[in-house]
């Protein structure tokens, strides 16, 4: 009698431990979803192993690859030590002349010189204009840089998970200014700022759009306040800001106004968040939604022109190439819409191309080719004319 009882008690006591070891909590670690950009015939992309990679789009060969230093991370449960892991990258590299800028989840901004990287010199080579900037944690949980970096003529603007926006000197990486904490509640600034004139506009998860003076970072008098937080980075067309919200509406906000110009959809909210930034072209807003639909909306009125149901969440922003609208859904299907013809209420794409890899990152299109980084860490080059994947290359460089 005694032994089974003890056994039962031990099992009861061990159950919490089983709970710890078996249940992951369903969370996913920061792996990153860096986007792609093409500049002077070279494709630049981040990879999930913490590297910045340059690939020649003509020869399809690797030009250079720079592996960002590993970061220390707390190791798993009941292990007291620390482990090293590649830093995650979420932003798209930004290229200016011979420098590639990238922000990392470990809170760094790196300026990489193409020549120095192709020679595989030790980083940073200051004589080549290379630098590294470490974002302060500033009593926040994290200093991670998730949003795309924003480049102006002489500065680079960085949104940080510590709640501040920073302006850095483009040439030397020196700090020009830091804003006050814009989102005290969440601190996370995972959306990119946008410039118009001498003002920087920033959206926050606590539902604000702030206007900052570009030169000093000083907060201007006007701000917009919404009940729900903003999911996407703001996009400006003329004097109107377009952005998605957690309340499943797309907002159009006239700069200087306290009320939204319109919210889309006009009646019931959409099926999910407008996660990706919309794009605006010739008075029409094109927005992808996590409910799997692409919407074309009249910028002045917020009226729906047409929609298309892709069936899978749209995580990446749409891209325009000439008169073609290119949209990818999360399952890796590329939809091409011809904007030169009038599209009906339920629009049909001109072409549908599958790359057979999930897509979450931003992509780019140039000269009939679409450059997409799949979640399998490969770059896919899609030829719009042929409707096929022209070629693909892995971003993880095997030693």
């Amino acid at each position, binding site marked *: *009698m*005694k032994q089974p*009882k*003890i056994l*039962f*008690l031990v099992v*009861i*006591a061990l*159950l*919490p*431990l089983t*709970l*710890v070891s078996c*249940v992951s*909590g*369903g*969370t*996913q*670690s*920061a*792996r990153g*979803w860096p986007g792609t950009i093409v500049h002077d015939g070279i494709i630049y992309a981040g990879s999930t192993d913490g590297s910045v990679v340059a690939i020649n789009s003509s020869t399809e060969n690797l030009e250079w690859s720079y592996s960002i230093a590993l970061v220390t991370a707390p190791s798993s*449960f*009941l292990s007291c030590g620390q482990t090293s892991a590649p830093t995650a990258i*979420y932003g798209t590299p930004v290229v200016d002349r011979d420098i590639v800028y990238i922000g990392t989840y470990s809170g760094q901004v790196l300026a990489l010189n193409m020549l120095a990287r192709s020679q595989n010199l030790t980083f940073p080579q200051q004589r080549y204009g290379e630098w590294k900037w470490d974002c302060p944690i500033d009593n926040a*949980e994290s200093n991670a840089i*998730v949003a795309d970096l924003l480049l102006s003529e002489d500065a680079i603007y960085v949104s940080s998970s510590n709640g501040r926006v920073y302006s850095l000197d483009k040439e030397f990486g020196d700090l020009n200014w830091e804003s006050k904490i814009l989102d005290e*509640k*969440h601190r*996370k600034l*995972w959306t990119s700022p946008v410039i118009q004139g001498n003002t920087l506009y920033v959206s926050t*998860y606590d539902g604000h759009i702030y206007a900052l003076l570009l030169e000093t970072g000083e907060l201007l008098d006007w701000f917009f306040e919404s*009940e*729900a*937080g903003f999911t996407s980075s703001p996009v400006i067309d003329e004097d109107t800001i377009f952005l998605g919200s*957690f*309340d*499943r509406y797309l907002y159009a906000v006239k700069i200087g106004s306290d009320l939204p110009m319109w919210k889309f959809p006009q009646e019931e*909210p959409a*099926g*999910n*968040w407008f*996660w990706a930034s919309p794009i605006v072209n010739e008075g029409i807003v094109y927005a992808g939604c*996590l409910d799997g639909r692409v919407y074309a909306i009249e910028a002045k009125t917020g009226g729906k022109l047409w929609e298309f149901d892709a069936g899978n*969440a749209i*995580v990446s922003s749409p891209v325009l190439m000439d008169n073609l609208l290119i949209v990818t859904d999360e399952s890796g299907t590329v939809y091409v819409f011809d904007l030169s013809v009038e599209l009906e209420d339920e629009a049909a794409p001109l072409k549908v191309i599958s790359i057979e890899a999930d897509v*979450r990152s931003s992509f780019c299109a140039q000269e009939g080719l679409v450059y997409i980084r799949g979640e399998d860490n490969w770059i896919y080059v899609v030829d719009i004319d042929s409707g096929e994947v022209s070629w693909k290359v892995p971003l993880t460089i095997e030693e």
Partner: protein
Amino acid sequence: MIEVWHLIIGNPVLNVLIALSHLLSGEFGLAIIALTIIVRLISWPLTKRQLNSSKALQDMQPKIQELQKKYGKNKQKLQQEMMKLYKEAGVNPLGCLWPMLIQFPIWIALYQAIMRALATTPENLLDLAHRLYSWDIVNQAIPLNSHFLWLDLGQPDPYMILAIIVGGTMWVQQKMTQAPAIDPGQQSTSRMMLLMMPLMFGFLTLMFPSGLALYWAVSNVIGIITQYFVTGGWGYLKFRSPFQSTQ
């Protein structure tokens, strides 16, 4: 199987927790406390049964002491008579453990809900979008504020205060409900169990997100209060073991 779990338990707990957070001024900590109260209310029939069982055990103590005196030297006979007595009274001395067992799925769901709702990485935030119901109350609450009192609910309490509260309240609750062992051999096991569970949970509090530990602490406090009022006192907290008294 995993999808069924999310459909039936995981996602409902997640959405209710977020909705509660919105109703309670965006305070995620208060939402956890409110959910704990709801869970305790739902499990009330089971708790009541367990408390009644515990009360019956207390009432049986004079009879147990009598048996102790009568069969003190014959352990086997004492055990047999004790079991007979329990059976006649319809009491299970280990019955207090069942409510805890029933709560395991809730703990798992709550742990997952806390981690998912706080969405510490961009991947988690995107994943959260696919799990939310289309209720306005839920979507307007996102993203959640992870701070409550001195705690970051997605991280363990760095000051160990919560570990002490969880361990302490669990010990009190167990001590109130756990009938003293009759057999000296069993007494050491019983004493070990009385210490083991609070120590274990205190230790786990140091490892788990403090949001889950907050659930444990509040659940224990509610348990102590209901135990006090249902059984009409501190139960075995003030009770001396019959074995000790016979000695």
